[in-house]
């Protein structure tokens, strides 16, 4: 009689790390696109994906301030359902389709981590922050206008892993300039049984499905991005060789599903 969409399952089903879908998300985004060593991005691709010869080495680094709700007014419990996230997306190809793959992602909330693992986002814990935009004008407001600057940072275990600063130049009416490709993840859950630890219980290439995707107030400009070399981390391998656009926007979508591209267990 235990209930719940995820562990821990419980008599009332309230203890689960995340409530069941549909999951509704709203966010503010600060990010930068850039080019890294194509060998570094190629080295991160799972079976089923191959480098995109047209955009080899292209990376999008994204910092998000999230607010989440499911069906029970979770957005009114900001301590539990607001969170911050940072990740990188690398260009790749699935069959003939240009996609992005998410090799690394960090979040500061356990419910978001549980949803991420369920979706195939390889989430770890990190401390993530970004400059916000406030409505009342002032030097601290971070206004959306030409010349405004935003900073964002990711740290894990007390070490800075990635930081960016962007300067807005102009509003960008077409968000596909930055977010033009579907996201592919690897759902992966290992076995612990001796002798089977290299044979995961779940190993699926999946396509993220975002319902009602809405991106507004996109601005683009210039960006700097730094990925320091940290012991026991591999994010540094994706350090920029040249920078593209910096961007800032707001985004919303809902998740109720995904599409399995390849089931490596089948």
């Amino acid at each position: 009689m235990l209930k719940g969409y995820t562990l821990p399952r419980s008599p009332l089903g309230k203890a689960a790390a995340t409530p069941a879908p549909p999951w509704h998300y709203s966010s503010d985004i600060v990010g930068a696109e850039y080019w890294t060593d194509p060998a570094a991005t190629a080295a991160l691709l799972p079976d089923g994906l191959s480098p995109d010869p047209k955009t080899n080495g292209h990376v999008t680094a994204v910092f998000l301030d999230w607010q989440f709700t499911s069906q029970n007014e979770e957005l009114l419990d900001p301590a539990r359902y607001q969170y911050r996230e940072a990740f990188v997306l690398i260009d790749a190809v699935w069959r003939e389709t240009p996609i992005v793959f998410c090799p690394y992602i960090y979040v500061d909330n356990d419910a978001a981590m549980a949803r991420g693992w369920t979706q195939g986002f390889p989430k770890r814990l990190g401390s993530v922050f970004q400059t916000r935009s406030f409505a009342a004008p002032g030097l601290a407001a971070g206004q959306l206008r030409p010349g405004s600057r935003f900073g964002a940072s990711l740290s894990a275990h007390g070490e800075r892993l990635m930081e960016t600063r962007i300067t807005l130049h102009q509003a960008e009416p077409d968000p596909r300039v930055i977010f033009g490709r579907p996201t592919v993840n690897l759902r992966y859950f290992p076995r612990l049984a001796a002798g089977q630890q290299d044979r995961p219980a779940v190993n699926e290439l999946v396509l993220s499905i975002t319902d009602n995707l809405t991106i507004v107030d996109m601005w683009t400009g210039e960006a700097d991005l730094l990925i320091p070399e940290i012991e026991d981390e591999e994010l540094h391998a994706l350090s920029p060789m040249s920078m593209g656009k910096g961007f800032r926007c707001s985004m919303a979508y809902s998740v109720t599903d995904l599409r399995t591209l390849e089931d490596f267990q089948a």
Partner: protein
Amino acid sequence: MMPLVTWTDSTEEDQGMLKGYTLPLSPEGEANIVPTPPWHYSGDVLAIEFWTDPQAAAACLPPGLKADQCADGHALGLFVDWQFTAQDDEFLDPAKYQYREFYVLVDAVWRDTPVAWCPYIYVDNDAAMGRGWIQGYPKKLASVFQTRSFAAASPAAAPIAAGTTFAGSMSVHGRRAAAGRVTLREQVPELPAALLRPTVNRRYFPRLTAGQHDQPSVNELTMVVNDDFKFANCWVGEGKIALPKTAGEELDALAPMRVGSGYRFSMSCTIKDLKILDGLGS
């Protein structure tokens, strides 16, 4: 063998080698907990007005302030999402200079002036706590959160629109000490005077010297001086607030007997001064 502690005479040359507005002073002046004013603030605010036991409100007033006989225990509970900057692009270091705050203001009177007195305030950032102490805000650390409004429409966006509910919460050491909700009804051109009384604080810094623990080094009644006070997107609606009994806190003594309106607005201001009202003596 080297002595464990060496003493050198202070000289003119020593003084001024360390820099900084507050402790810790340091060779480059970058280590201090708070940079030098002016301090610029932007924030989103949930404000809930309520009436507490007038005796409880009077009991938290310092010398120099009197209970406002007209107020009948009127008070405000405020949740604020803050972004800060001084002169060196501090707002581009959001990890250090964004923070969240909850505080209570109770109506009082200084001489013949209606004022708001801040008996309790909680914040999640050390730089904000340092600035608060310097201003006389009695800040302690806590976890503070509030529902935000995002631009892209979704069930999670909390649009600034009639019917939207915003919530705030404050916990001290893992125990919930305040929770509030504001359900927006209508936009208003400006905030009511009840929210805009000048704020009075008590700058207070004790001595540690034996026999002088009750003779503080600093003990002043002060009035906050806000420059460039700006408000935007002011909405009024239904307010709710609870101040549960929490170990080690006395906030619950101000628990609401009845609750009035709730407000949600954005504000900005600059702090570079204050007004000393009374030296309260040591």
